[in-house]
């Protein structure tokens, strides 16, 4: 049996019953569209998460976290020292497998103001210059702190562009770049001089959009103000957070905000955070064990700390993606199953209508195999038409989704997803055609000829 002819007859069959075929194909179209659309959305999510993770400091960042003392040390809980600069210095000297150690001391309830404008930074912390490497910051304007700032506890700060936007205006809205170096702002009422500003952090996609906008502006020579769509903050949570950072020297944080004591009048020397980076990812375990040994000494054996690696974060992300994939796959699978049942139904109806045609073919010398192949091919043609329509529909769905809910994560249609969807619906066609094809192949030529 000639495959080309089989396909041709299949297409003619579909064309002869346009509306019926259309209805039948709906399941397959939906299945393919949801499969491709889902995987596009998940891919977008994945990319967004990956970018966010890099924005938060990369995969090799380890956070030394506070932890409730274990049960067997319950009685020592009030002697737990917490994370202090002592730990940092001890780690620097005693844990050579660590590359970067960055302590942070948060300014409690920080409120920044300039004139009548206020901002509450996501992070208002005292840091060492190590923080740049730790959190992958880039100082675009001005400078970062130096040893003198630290030593003398200078009232200087380096801000992210988010703080600048709140206090000085958003260049996208004002229409010109604002670099507030040398300006004085108030942190909880104390004056600080801005000595540096970070670059604006944004996702790949936002950067592209921005470049495009700038290009358009340059060519039309008009100032276009930013249009905000939906409830999305500029370019995703992680980037928004990173842009709303305000750093002061660690010593300044201590001297100005902590040393005088809190409500109880007792100064709190504990750091809000210690971040670590190891020399190499391969030696992660070893390095962490080393750090743990050192810290157990400084903490007098009280295990009130733990390490949170990004690995667990990555695991988390992967788990979420896997779940999303699974649920998307199940939805698509069910749609395709329904589509397959539709195709089977229509093929059964079709061969019942064509009993005489099939009988004629058999009388003319078609073997059971010929008839079987013909019906299977028709079924596959039907399902592949559905798949093609589904691919087109998935483009629309993805467009629609990114229009309705513009997040930082644009859905990305991958050719793998498309190939899988097409292959899957093709096999659905084969399976759906199987029963009708067997039924048709088994028709006796005489019965077929007698059938009216």
């Amino acid at each position: 049996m000639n495959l080309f002819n089989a396909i041709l007859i299949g297409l003619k069959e579909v064309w002869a019953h346009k509306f019926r075929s259309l209805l039948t194909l709906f399941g397959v179209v939906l299945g393919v569209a949801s499969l491709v659309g889902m995987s596009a959305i998940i891919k977008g999510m994945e990319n967004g998460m990956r970018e966010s993770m890099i924005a938060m400091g990369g995969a090799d960042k380890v956070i030394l976290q506070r932890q409730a003392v274990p049960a067997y040390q319950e009685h020592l809980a009030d002697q737990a020292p917490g994370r202090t600069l002592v730990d940092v210095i001890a780690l620097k000297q005693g844990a050579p497998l660590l590359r970067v150690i960055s302590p942070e001391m948060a300014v409690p309830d920080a409120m920044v103001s300039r004139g009548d404008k206020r901002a509450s930074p996501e992070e208002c912390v005292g840091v060492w210059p190590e923080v740049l490497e730790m959190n992958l910051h880039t100082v675009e304007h001005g400078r970062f702190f130096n040893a003198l700032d630290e030593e003398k506890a200078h009232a200087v700060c380096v801000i992210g562009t988010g703080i600048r936007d709140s206090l000085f205006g958003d260049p996208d809205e004002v229409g010109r770049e604002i670099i507030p170096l040398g300006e004085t702002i108030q942190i909880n009422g104390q004056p600080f001089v801005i000595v540096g500003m970070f670059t604006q952090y944004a996702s790949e996609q936002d950067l592209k959009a921005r470049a495009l906008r700038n290009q358009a502006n340059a060519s039309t020579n008009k100032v276009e103000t930013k249009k905000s769509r939906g409830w999305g903050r500029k370019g995703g949570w992680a980037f928004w957070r990173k842009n709303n950072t305000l750093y002061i020297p660690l010593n300044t944080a201590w001297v100005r905000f902590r040393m005088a004591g809190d409500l109880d009048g007792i100064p709190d020397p504990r750091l809000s955070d210690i971040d670590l980076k190891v020399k190499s990812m391969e030696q992660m375990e070893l390095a962490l064990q080393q750090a743990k040994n050192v810290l157990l000494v400084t903490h007098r054996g009280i295990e009130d700390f733990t390490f949170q690696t990004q690995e667990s974060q990555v695991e988390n992300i992967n788990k979420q993606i896997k779940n999303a994939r699974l649920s998307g796959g199940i939805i698509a699978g069910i749609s395709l199953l329904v589509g397959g049942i539709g195709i089977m139904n229509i093929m059964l109806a079709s061969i019942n209508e064509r009993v005489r045609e099939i009988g004629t073919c058999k009388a003319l010398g078609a073997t059971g195999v010929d008839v079987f192949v013909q019906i299977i091919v028709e079924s596959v043609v039907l399902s592949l038409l559905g798949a093609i329509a589904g691919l087109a529909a998935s483009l629309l769905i993805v467009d629609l989704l990114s229009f309705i809910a513009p997040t930082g994560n644009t859905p990305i249609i991958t050719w793998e997803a498309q190939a899988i969807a097409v292959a899957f619906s093709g096999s659905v066609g084969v399976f759906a055609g199987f029963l009708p094809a067997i039924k048709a192949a088994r028709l006796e030529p005489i019965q077929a000829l007698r059938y009216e």
Partner: protein
Amino acid sequence: MALLELRNVSKIYHLGGEEIRALDDVSLDLDQGEFVSIIGPSGSGKSTLMHILGCLDSPTLGNVVLAGTDIAKASARELARVRNRTIGFVFQFFNLLPKLNVLQNVELPMIYAGIGSRERRERAEKALEMVELSHRLKNRPNQLSGGQQQRVAIARALVNNPKIILADEPTGNLDTHTGELILALFRRLAAEGRTVILVTHNPEIAAVTPRRIEIRNGKIAHQVDAKLAGLDRVSKAPTEGQPS
């Protein structure tokens, strides 16, 4: 040796425990180039005989020898091959595939025979030329008259160059004039050396063939062969033959 020999062929059906002999011990020889009609009322076993002659069905008992090979016990696949190569069918309702055009309909048996597309087209065009339909190649069957459709069907039956043409009431759906043209075409085919078997219930149509076989109650009731030595040879069936 005859082209097609039936030896003591019986076809037995079982309907609710009851045994029905649709064909009962029929023996028959058909030679090459013969123009034969099989007549009989409905229920006589005429259709069953036609199915067995056309290799659409296998007999319960007996042998069917086609060109020297016994095909009584052949598999469905082998029967399909025989139908494809050796027998051309012409049906009462034409049985053209409505979604294919005239040319594609005629090409169909060659597709099953595995013939390449160029040769298929050549041979189909030639066959259609023979039935004088060269100008309707791209038409759909429903755009043709009944006589034209039957001619397409004949072209389709001829295209694999079969030894036997089996026509089941070929004129049943045609007006008298068109029917006569079709019958003339069959006569020509027989003269060219093909065995043409005409199955009909109409004695007038059967009258055009030199040899007539009448079936009643699953047996050959009556045979007339005008070719035999000027006189009509009348052979009574051995048991309960009835004169026509």
